[in-house]
């Protein structure tokens, strides 16, 4: 079963290996220049990474504070509580605080980077950024190394997720959920659904389309529409072509807003009828609104990303955070989360547990993806820092900033 599964997951492995190769090249370059920057020592940024050791007060202060994204943990509408978190509190005596404080990787990083740099508490003991952002946190020394003895369940993670380019052997981070970026739409307004970019930018949807402010997802989908593989060695020109396409759709008034996770609110309020969005969000919306919304991976290809839990170097509750992380990699708990969030579950053994909760969900290719589904998506390749600055600038300028 497991070997078979690995065989099926091959496309992901390939793209992750691709990303990893280019990242290695980057790291070497960064190391060399990082050293010279440290010598020059007048400047901003990573040259002076603060590695102030923080005293762990986990035993006296039984709390753990977690920053995550909306719709990312099982939530009980009636009691307004998170059942798995409640169970964790009951089991360990640690009081968790869960905040849906991440709307966008960049804005969240912007909020906390000042404190991270000087090594003062950012107010969270667990954060959940996307892989490319995790790469940045680890490189800059902002992630605390796991004490593996405290996270025995680490072994439950999918084999292919155990060795990612930015964190070999997962010493600093663990995949929280993976998901697809694709099209979401309001099934009452768009009967035939949205399966291609042309469906998305149909005349009837003009002014009611929103795309993600997450560069890798929005651009990854547009690039694939233009026949460019975002996981391959695409050129700057190819990327800029996609930027021109996006600019055109904004100038023509097709795209109403470029948003972070808040696009879900616009879908519910009716300001948006079709979006480039994330699979899990749309499935949660679908179940909460009696099938009013749906999700599909674009025919021309979607993107695959992972968000990861990591402990900031500034956390004074590292042991509690590790207990929390360990708890969520128990198959039964992971299944409970998967049943709500509908994203790709990082714990393979959770499939059997999920079958007990909801057999239909356990068979969903969006939670335990099959080869056919994975063949339709790509992982955006790792960018060099120069590319990252240039591409992000082009993206932000295209979106009006």
């Amino acid at each position, binding site marked *: 079963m497991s070997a078979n599964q690995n065989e099926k997951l091959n496309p992901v492995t390939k793209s992750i290996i691709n990303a990893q190769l280019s990242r290695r090249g980057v790291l070497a*370059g*960064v190391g060399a220049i990082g050293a010279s920057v440290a010598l020059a020592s007048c400047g901003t*940024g990573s040259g002076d990474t603060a590695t102030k050791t923080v005293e762990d007060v986990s035993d006296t202060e039984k709390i753990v504070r977690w920053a995550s994204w909306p719709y990312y943990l099982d939530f009980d509408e009636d009691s307004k509580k998170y059942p798995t978190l409640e169970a964790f509190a009951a089991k360990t005596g640690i009081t968790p605080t869960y905040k849906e404080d991440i709307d966008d990787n960049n804005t969240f990083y912007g909020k906390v980077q000042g404190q991270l740099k000087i090594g003062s508490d950012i107010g969270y003991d667990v954060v959940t950024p996307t892989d490319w952002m995790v790469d940045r946190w680890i490189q800059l020394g902002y992630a605390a190394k796991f004490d593996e003895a405290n996270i025995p369940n680490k072994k439950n993670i999918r084999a292919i997720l155990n060795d990612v380019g930015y964190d070999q052997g997962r010493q600093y981070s663990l995949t929280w959920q993976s998901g697809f970026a694709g099209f979401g739409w309001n099934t009452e307004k768009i009967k035939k659904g949205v399966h291609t970019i042309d469906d998305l930018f149909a005349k009837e949807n003009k002014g009611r389309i929103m795309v993600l402010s997450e560069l890798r997802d929005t651009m990854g989908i547009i690039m694939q529409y233009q026949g460019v593989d975002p996981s391959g060695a695409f050129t700057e020109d190819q990327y800029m072509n996609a930027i021109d396409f996006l600019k055109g759709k904004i100038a023509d008034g097709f795209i109403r807003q470029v948003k972070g996770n808040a696009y879900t609110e616009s879908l519910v309020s009716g300001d948006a009828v079709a979006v480039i969005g994330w699979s899990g969000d749309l499935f949660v919306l679908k179940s909460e609104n009696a099938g009013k919304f749906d999700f599909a991976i674009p025919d021309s290809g979607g993107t695959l990303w992972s968000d990861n839990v990591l402990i900031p170097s500034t956390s004074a509750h590292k042991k509690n955070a590790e207990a929390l992380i360990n708890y969520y990699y128990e198959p039964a708990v992971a299944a409970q989360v998967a049943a709500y969030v509908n994203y790709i579950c990082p714990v393979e053994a959770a499939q059997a547990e999920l079958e007990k909760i909801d057999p239909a969900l356990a068979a969903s290719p969006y939670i335990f993806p099959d080869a056919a589904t994975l063949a339709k998506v790509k992982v955006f390749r790792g960018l060099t820092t120069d590319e990252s600055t240039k591409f992000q600038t082009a993206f*932000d300028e295209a979106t009006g*900033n």
Partner: protein
Amino acid sequence: MAFLHATAHASAPAIDNAAKKRSLTPYLLLLPGMVWLIGFFVLPIATLASTSTMTRPEGAAVGTYVQSLRFQNYFDAFNANKDQFFRSFLYAGIATLLALAISYPLAYMIAFKAGKMRSFLLVLVVAPFFTSFLLRTVAWTQILGDEGPVVSFLKALPFFSNDIRLTSTPFAVVSGLTYNFLPFMTLPLYASLERIDPRTLEAAGDLYANGLTTFRRVTVPLSMPGVVAGTLLTFIPAAGDYVNAYLLGNPNTRMIGNVIDSRFFAIVDYPTAAALSFTLMAAILILVTLYIRKSGTDELV
């Protein structure tokens, strides 16, 4: 004589001391303010200034910049964002005029006609401040949303097309700015109107001025300090605002505050963000100086 001499001698140091103390007192009184100003204004401004001329070495990690005194940053930043600068001043200008048009009658009414209701009405003006600025703006996105009450009502009217929408438009951004900064206009206007001696208005009447002339020749000139203060208090924050453009606008209505925000947080391009902030500061300073010169009032409130 000797006695006198002695006392004079004795008191001389005392007087000296007192004089010294007196000369030190103003500085001691200034000290807390100066410390505050240096710590929270001069130092940050100096850091910002030094950041604005930095550059990123080729291939360095994101957010790493070194000082290279590149003043070209200012021109590059301005040229890349001319539209947003222009738009910020345009929106802020329109919002200021709208706020003035709404606030003047309101402040006039509260100052002269409200009677016992005066304090109550003032509380109503200030009341929105009791909740968060952000929440109030988010509330507008729902009130003006496509499925919200306002749009549904407009759609029911015969002279609006069914495609009408209010959020994600320049109209929504300017309305948001006007709404959010309205109290900053109303309060100074009220303060200066309320201070007008009613006898000056009576005197105008005695001199055969009709209501309109009295208003034009007496009330308006006497309330000018309030108008100047109110317009400044509205225009300056509105020009730098980014919340309204972000929540109520679309990618084509972004203001300079949004650019600074994205440069700082998303692109992690500190020099451009710093250069833009300085340019904005300078532009506002020049506009305000010209405006105060033109309106010829030194007394702000």
